[in-house]
């Protein structure tokens, strides 16, 4: 923690020094409020049985200082209060976080390399699908733009991000930290990303991506919590179901997207995951290796003449493990549960981790007025194996693959440029995989956002 304080002081001193020499500066903010009601709590053993108010307030402030035509300092901090956060949290949250705190440079060049961009500091790291990695980190991003090829190279450390702003759930220690009020920071991991985008002549885009993350718990690079973590060790003969070890994962992905004909578009992608972790097998903890798969694809058609309608369909598959009692450190065999680094949000009500899941989705949106947009989305959820999913409430003995279906509706209205609103709602009907007590879950609310 002492090191964290020193880093913060040094950071603020650096910001003041750099801002003082800025050529031009702008600052602003955003006030966001969500008020709603629902009975959905994925952490409940019997979801859909208790009604509650949903309240979320976020105040963001940002500063951008142009140091030259090519160089800028970007800062964005926010404070959040949330009575019903998304999983994995099950309590009210009040936290502050720095979303951005970085130096960004952009340079036009002559030659094969047409543009070079860099970002150093707190930044958002994302893969091309945002389903494996979309998380804040402290590090560096380099972007090389050649004619026809774009190459991104990035590395970052997640352990200084505020816990409330994190969605990393790769180990049991990560989950334990979310319920431990004494822990303030996110899971300490080093994340590396290399991504190449190739633009082909016929409007097709091919992306190749490689991502790796190393678990730094219990090492000197665990800046936030140091040696406070309780980790199981290789060879230990005591089974500790609530504790876990380090989990390292690597991902190699490929994706294609583009137009099929006219306003008809498609995208497909796939990620192969390799992972290393400790598993209690044959009376002791042993290092195991596993592989897993994430794949998805979708089509959508734009109909500009029909109220700017968009009709879409999408399928997602994340592999599972029939023997896993949990998706976190539940891997028991060579081809097992897929575990992304950050957790994506799939739906308003039922939004499981992308592990042991198949999602089939259909959507329709239209824009009847320039300031009004409406969207309808239906999702059917299945599990590819009879193993656990991230949500509780499944029938213990059931091997049924059908998890349930959800219907979401949203109406977005922006009457003026700096005010936006969204009226939204969703209803989830549990499938045969859920225990008999699981009820219909719903959530509905109104979002209002003001930029100043």
């Amino acid at each position, binding site marked *: 923690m002492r090191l964290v304080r020193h880093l913060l002081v040094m950071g603020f001193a650096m910001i003041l020094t750099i801002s003082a020499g800025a050529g031009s*500066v*702008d600052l*602003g903010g955003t006030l966001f409020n969500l008020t709603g009601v629902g009975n959905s709590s994925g952490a409940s053993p019997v979801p859909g049985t208790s009604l509650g108010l949903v309240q979320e307030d976020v105040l963001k402030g940002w500063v951008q200082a142009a140091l030259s035509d090519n160089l800028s300092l970007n800062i964005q901090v926010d404070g959040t209060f949330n009575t019903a956060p998304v999983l994995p949290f099950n309590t009210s949250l009040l936290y502050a976080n720095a979303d951005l705190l970085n130096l960004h440079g952009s340079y036009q060049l002559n030659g094969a390399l047409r543009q070079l961009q860099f970002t150093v500091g707190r930044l958002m790291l994302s893969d091309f699908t945002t389903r494996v990695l979309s998380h804040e980190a402290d590090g560096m991003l380099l972007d090389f733009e050649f004619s026809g090829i774009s190459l991104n190279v990035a590395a970052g450390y997640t352990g200084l991000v505020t816990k409330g702003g994190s969605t990393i759930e790769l180990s049991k220690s990560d989950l334990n930290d979310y319920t431990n009020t004494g822990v303030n920071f996110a899971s300490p991991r080093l994340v590396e990303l290399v991504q190449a985008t190739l633009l082909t002549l016929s409007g097709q885009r091919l992306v190749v991506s490689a991502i790796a993350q190393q678990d730094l718990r219990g090492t000197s690079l665990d800046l936030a919590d140091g040696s406070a973590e309780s980790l199981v060790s290789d060879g230990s003969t005591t089974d500790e179901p609530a504790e876990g070890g380090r989990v390292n994962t690597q991902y190699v992905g490929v994706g294609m997207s583009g137009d099929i004909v006219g306003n008809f578009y498609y995208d497909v992608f796939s990620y192969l995951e390799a992972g290393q972790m400790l598993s209690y097998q044959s009376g002791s903890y042993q290092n195991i290796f596993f592989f897993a798969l994430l794949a998805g694809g979708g089509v959508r058609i734009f109909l500009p003449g029909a109220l700017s309608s968009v009709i879409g369909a999408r399928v997602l598959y994340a592999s599972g493990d029939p023997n896993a009692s949990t998706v976190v450190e539940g891997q028991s065999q060579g081809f097992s549960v897929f575990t992304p680094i950050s957790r994506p949000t799939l739906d308003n009500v039922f939004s499981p981790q992308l592990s042991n899941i198949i999602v089939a989705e259909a959507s329709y949106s239209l824009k009847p007025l320039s300031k009004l947009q409406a969207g309808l989305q239906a999702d059917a959820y299945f599990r590819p194996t009879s193993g656990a999913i991230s949500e509780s409430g499944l029938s213990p003995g059931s091997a049924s693959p059908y998890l349930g279906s959800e219907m979401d509706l949203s109406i977005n209205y922006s009457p003026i*440029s700096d005010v936006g609103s969204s009226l939204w709602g969703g209803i989830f009907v549990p499938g045969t995989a859920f225990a008999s007590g699981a009820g219909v879950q719903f959530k509905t609310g109104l979002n209002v956002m003001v930029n100043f």
Partner: protein
Amino acid sequence: MIKSSLKHFRLRRFHLLVVLWLACAANLFAQSNQTIDRLLEERPATFGDAAYVILSAAGLVPETANGEEATAAIAEKRLLPRTPSPTEPVTLGQVCYLIMETQGIKGGLFYTLLPGPRYATRELASLGFLKGYTHPNRVVSGEEVMWILGAVLDWKEKV
């Protein structure tokens, strides 16, 4: 001179500017060629020349006016909290605010409550008319002044 300016334009990277320029040509061709040519070369643009093209496009100063007269008109109408001298560099916020006020563009909530260069810049940025840093206190080139004015006039013709 106008022809030579247009030829010079085509050599530049901002091809869209030419399109926008032509779109608002009906308004601008009648203005003083000399002032427009000078403005296009200015880096940064002077307040007087920027004020002239903005007010002239709205018909608030005659074609025969110059930068000093346009600046005087701004001071007389109290369009800005403080009217700079005609030779001072013009800022992005001043350009956006003058365009918003002279073209009668309604802004958002904060522009209505606190009208001025800051929220005028936000408004035109939200409409997609600004390039680069959208900082109100950034000094801009004459070419950028023409780009923004051309984009706004083109947009106004369509809505």
